[in-house]
């Protein structure tokens, strides 16, 4: 959505060159857009306006259409992942055990909403479906670290570790 908090886009010459090659490679194929978006996301880690614009111009597909596809499929992301990627499970078990309050607390602490990234690029926040650790509900992961049986009061201490 418009006005989301995020660190500003910085792409390198090298990334741009790579994207150009990807576009060139798929240019005259039918249905080129989805594979190009995938490869672009691999190059940049996410698909901000600047990247979508390059694809729009390169493939001659309206930006509006590209944005529609990016927001329709959950595998595409409009925002970069932070250095520390916080995932809060909102699956049934976690939800019942209070994951909602935990995610609210995290939002409050780092000042961003789900799907966003802090301006310094440190944290990003996302909500996930059941990650198969229901016994530990409610569960939060930060990169590869797993925190289970959390209460709202644990949040601050955990965030401070990073």
């Amino acid at each position, binding site marked *: 959505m418009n006005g989301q908090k995020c660190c500003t886009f910085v792409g390198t010459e090298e990334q741009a060159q790579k994207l150009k090659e990807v576009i060139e490679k798929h240019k005259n194929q039918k249905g080129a857009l989805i594979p190009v978006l995938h490869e672009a996301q691999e190059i940049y880690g996410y698909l901000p306006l600047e990247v979508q614009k390059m694809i729009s111009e390169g493939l001659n597909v309206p930006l*509006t259409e590209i*944005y529609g596809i990016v927001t*329709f499929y959950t595998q595409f992301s409009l925002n970069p992942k932070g250095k520390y990627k916080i995932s809060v499970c909102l699956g049934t078990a976690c939800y019942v055990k209070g994951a909602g309050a935990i995610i609210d607390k995290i939002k409050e602490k780092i000042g961003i909403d789900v799907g966003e990234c802090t301006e310094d690029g440190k944290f990003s926040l996302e909500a996930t479906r059941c990650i198969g650790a229901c016994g530990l509900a409610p569960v939060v992961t930060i990169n590869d670290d797993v925190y289970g049986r959390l209460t709202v009061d644990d949040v601050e201490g955990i965030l401070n570790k990073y």
Partner: protein
Amino acid sequence: MVNVIIDGQKIQVPKNYTVLEAARSANIDIPTLCYLKGINEIGACRICVVEVKGARSLQAACVYPVSEGLEIRTNTPAVREARKVNLELILSNHDRKCLTCVRNRNCELQKLAEDLNVQNIRFEGETYRFPVDDFSPSIVRDPNKCVLCRRCVSVCKNIQTVSVIDAQERGFKTIVASAFNKPLSEVPCTMCGQCIVACPVGALREKDDVDRVWEMLSDETKHVVVQTAPAVRVALGEEFGMPIGTRVTGKMVAALRRIGFAKVFDTDTAADLTIMEEGTELLGRLKEGKNLPLITSCSPGWIKFCEHNYPEFLDNLSSCKSPHEMFGAIIKSYYAEKMGINPADIRVVSVMPCTAKKFESVRPELAATGTPDVDAVITTRELARMIKEAGIDFAALPDESFDNPFGDASGAGVIFGATGGVMEAALRTVAEILAGKPIDSIEYTAVRGVEGIKEAVVELPGRTIRAAVAHGLGNARKLLDRIKAGEAQYDFIEIMGCPGGCVTGGGQPIQPAKVRMDIDLKVARAKAIYDEDKSLPIRKSHENPFIKKLYEEFLGEPCGHKSHELLHTHYTKRTNY
């Protein structure tokens, strides 16, 4: 032809018909919502479901093709229930504030609720509140009233090839919006308003300037004049229940006077002025062989499209301001001087069939006398609302005439309202200038009609002109791409942003999909325009006595120094996103 049976009735229909069309031809009404003939035929809403013998589930009539022996039932308990459920689901998260909605009593959703006898909504929808986008000077989008039919998306993408709106996100969060949810004012929207006239509900509307106009009218220190475009008079009647194609010129003038405008002028007169300037410009360019083809510049939707997408053609655009802007500049100079009124105390209001003219009127370069040439633009629809608000019984009004000296227009000025009209008007004048004498055969019918792109080689005295006319931005794109590829060459091109030209502009009365299935609005309204042309004593712009006087007393000569100051403009390359 194929034989089909609908509700027990045996009928023959063309084999390319859909079930919906077949039913209509048998006077059986199948309700629709997302369907808009020739524009959106995607079977998305499933309001039009029917039973097809042999098919396992109900089928959407608007996309289901007929075939020999097909048996259809349109009124069974299963059909009625399915339609109702689908409608109730749509209504469950709809912002149902009909009383204060711009489309109250002209809304396809409201009509459906009535027709399908929905008196109770059994579902509680998850409702998202989306912000209303009213940043554009022309278009307001309220996603909370959107039923996601995608009629606007199809018009913008397929007909206009602008593609600035599309479905975004998924599930309950689905919204029709621009990329990155940017407001329409920050994307290459042309402000043509074709999305508004395609929308079945109140999710899209014009930026309302009615209150601003009332305010001007109540300010006694201001001299408020109004001008009306040719296309308004052949459509305004529809807002008062009159048949499509009714000419209401006289009543419209009477209504404007009763609303309180000091003078009621006819933009057609300015169209005559445009022709003098543009015709002269064309002759000049032909002589020098420079910046050809000359492309008309009366349509601000087209101009913005060109600035965004075809900047390489900006030098080909006529430098003429559009007629109502020329008029504004003349009113605030020549007329002000004649009447002894300070131009700063004059307010010019334009009634236009167009939403892009709202955007045009705030372009900073269109202010020849220091204030904007035109102070407010209202659409045909807004004028109808003013007439109603003022308590005027429109049908009962007498026919009155425009005010002089700006009232008399030629038929050439009138036909500006239809596609091909500007071209034909210009040819009438250019032909006589080249011949040096009056010419009798003045109807250039090759450039009339509703085909998307029309071409004609016109033999003028001593010179052949290769002309092309395109209406609708998709057709404009096709034409320009052909020129760019070197596949076509022209001397003179008329382009109108809206399909059908101004008569079907984005500010015109909105007719529901059902009416548009049977009546081609372009054709019906254009016919009224050509009737008005035929009815006028003067049919060539340069024979308009007021125009002659204006040049003698004030402007000097067409494309002269003063003209350039007041009547001509320039264009800006614009970026996309």
